[in-house]
């Protein structure tokens, strides 16, 4: 073989090798599965949908998928809680629009979120006619009926709201009564300007004040109350369980032998119970006696044993001491020998701040 033939043979061999290495694929002549663009349909799936697969460009099937061809608006809500179905009609509709209400004859109904009627009217008197569908106010009052409801709270103790105004018995102002009485001291003298607090449980109901005759009065609903009497010069008094019957003026007196006599709190040293301070207002009460009115004013709010200035030149030992001339000498210290040194500090002595001095000669 000459050289030219050997070259031609080599070229053909290389061409064949190239052809074998890159087979034609555009027409998928070699694929056993499918032709590109081919579609295959399977069974149904979901509502108004079916299974489908497609042959891709590499002549292989895609996976099955559920594809739809629904009617316009398919699946959207419609009507009363319904949805648009395959036939383009509304399916699974409820009977009413959610939150709407109606009277079905004498019974009141409201539409649930699931579009179904539900009775929920008020029929407290159980007469078969709901308040919302034309029954009277008696429907607010259990046990009170159209033929028994009254214009006013006729009975304040029957447990019923007779006039159906939402205030049964003593809660109704038509059952109100009043409370009055007298507050006196141990000498049967009236105590004016005392505060009488009327409460029920933890709630304050009314507050009254005694007049110059020691009398108090307050309008209250019927019921049972606790009373508390307060006055700055007397110990507080309390009384529980004071009953005020319906439409009745009830009384309670803090007087005489009632054991509710106001106790005078001034003691013989002119202080008050539970209070170490001397009060000028205690003068003449329970053995408390100041030297005179001026001494009483000087000792007001001091403590027993304290000294107070009676006037410029005199002081008085509280509460009952007589005025004594104040020592009016400036301290002058002398040492018999050595040098005087002093030091001092402030202390409280007989109710006054004073200088406690230590003098030393050394």
């Amino acid at each position: 073989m000459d050289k030219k033939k050997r070259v031609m043979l080599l070229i053909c061999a290389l061409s064949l090798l190239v052809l074998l290495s890159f087979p034609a694929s555009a027409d998928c002549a070699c694929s056993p599965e499918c032709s590109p663009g081919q579609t295959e349909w399977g069974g149904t799936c979901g509502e108004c949908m079916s299974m489908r697969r497609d042959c891709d460009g590499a002549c292989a099937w895609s996976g099955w998928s559920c594809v739809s061809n629904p009617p316009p608006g398919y699946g959207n809500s419609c009507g009363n809680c319904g949805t648009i179905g395959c036939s383009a009609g509304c399916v699974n509709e409820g009977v009413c629009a959610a939150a709407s209400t109606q009277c079905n004859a004498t019974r009141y109904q409201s539409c649930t979120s699931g579009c179904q009627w539900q009775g929920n009217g008020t029929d407290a008197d159980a007469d078969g006619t709901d308040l919302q569908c034309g029954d009277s106010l008696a429907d607010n009052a259990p046990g009170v009926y159209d033929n028994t409801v009254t214009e006013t709270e006729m009975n304040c103790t029957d447990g019923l709201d007779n006039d159906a105004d939402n205030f049964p018995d003593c809660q109704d102002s038509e059952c109100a009564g009043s409370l009055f009485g007298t507050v006196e001291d141990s000498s049967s003298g009236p105590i004016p300007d005392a505060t009488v607090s009327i409460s029920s449980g933890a709630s304050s109901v009314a507050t009254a004040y005694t007049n110059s005759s020691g009398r108090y009065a307050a309008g209250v609903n019927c019921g049972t109350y606790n009373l508390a009497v307060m006055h700055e010069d007397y110990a507080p008094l309390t009384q529980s369980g004071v009953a005020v019957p319906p439409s009745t003026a009830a009384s309670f007196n803090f007087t005489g032998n009632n054991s509710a006599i106001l106790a005078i709190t001034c003691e013989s040293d002119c202080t008050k119970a539970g209070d170490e301070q001397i009060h000028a207002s205690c003068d003449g009460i329970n053995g408390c006696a100041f030297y005179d009115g001026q001494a009483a004013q000087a000792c007001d709010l001091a403590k027993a044993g304290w000294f107070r200035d009676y006037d410029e030149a005199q002081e008085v030992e509280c509460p009952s001491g007589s005025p004594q001339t104040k020592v009016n000498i400036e301290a002058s210290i002398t040492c018999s020998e050595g040098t005087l040194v002093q030091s001092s500090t402030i202390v409280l002595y007989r109710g006054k701040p004073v200088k406690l001095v230590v003098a030393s000669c050394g």
Partner: protein
Amino acid sequence: MVFVLVVSTLVATFDKSDGEPGQVFFDLFENPSFSLAQSGQIDQEMILGLASRDYNAVRKEMGVSGEFCIYLEDSDGRIIPLREDIFGLGSNSIEINNRPCIWE
């Protein structure tokens, strides 16, 4: 509260000690064993009660080397008698307004 305010105010108006030499006694008032000044509030019994103890023992407890006399002054520097006849409690070598201090 009122007491604290009053005392605090007056502390500012009174001298804590009189002159430099008194510094020795300034420490005395901070001595916990000198209970008389520690309470901030004294009465006649507390002061005169000191005399029921031995003078030298008290002096030693206070840490005072020389003779001493305790007395009270008001805010104007006037004597407050401890008793009608007693101006000061301590050594009779110290006189207050020519009246010797006593220890009895």
